[in-house]
């Protein structure tokens, strides 16, 4: 058991939730990215979280990998668009903004919860470092 385990564990939680925030902001920023109809649309990114060494002494969480949504997208009629095909269609990613905002909220709250643990652990460790001073 390392001395300041709690800080490392909350740090891993912060990292995973920040990666999730990054993925969501990437998805939202590309929500209107148009592509040609014969290409894949922007693919929604998901972060897959896994517990580190579940059930053993070690704790924390890690972002195991990223998964991508479908590149199928949705077709929009916009003949003036420079990327439009001969039928006047362009492709936009099929990302649900409501779903992304929900995920944003979950990632933000998870990040805040981990940050609160960091603060609490720091207080406890600081008190322990004062032991025997008086």
């Amino acid at each position, binding site marked *: 058991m390392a001395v300041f385990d709690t800080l490392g564990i909350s740090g891993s939680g912060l990292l995973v939730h920040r990666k999730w925030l990054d993925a969501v902001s990437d998805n939202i920023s590309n929500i209107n990215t148009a592509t040609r109809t014969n290409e894949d649309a922007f693919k929604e990114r998901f972060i897959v979280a896994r*517990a580190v060494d579940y059930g053993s002494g070690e704790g924390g969480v890690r972002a195991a990998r990223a998964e991508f949504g479908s590149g199928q997208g949705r077709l929009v009629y916009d003949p003036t668009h420079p990327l439009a095909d001969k039928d006047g269609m362009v492709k936009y990613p099929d990302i649900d903004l409501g779903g992304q905002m929900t995920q944003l909220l979950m990632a933000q709250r998870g990040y805040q919860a981990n940050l609160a643990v960091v603060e609490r652990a720091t207080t406890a460790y600081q008190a322990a470092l004062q032991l025997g001073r008086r």
Partner: protein
Amino acid sequence: MIGDVTSTALHAALTGLAERSRVTADNIANVNTPGFLAGRTDFESALSGALSNGEKPSISRGTVARSLEPTNTNGNNVNLDSETVIATETGLRYQLALNALDGKYSVLRTALRTS
């Protein structure tokens, strides 16, 4: 005298409480991890068992069991409210044990002081 039952018991309590705060941090870090079951630490039963038998308690991190509370749809059963309550309570009890150990040490220092 210096490593007597009082300071050993407080040391055991501090070790157990540190483990509980570690497990709580693990639970909160995994608050959004699918399939994660919250961990629950128990060191009190071993500690109080040893103390009621008049033995010097052993310093151990206690046992971690997985919570059997119902999970939500992604198989996770971490409840942020109860984890926060546990974290607060564990922090306060940690401070309490530290203060008691501090008191014990100051008594020892008084005894060691030459007149």
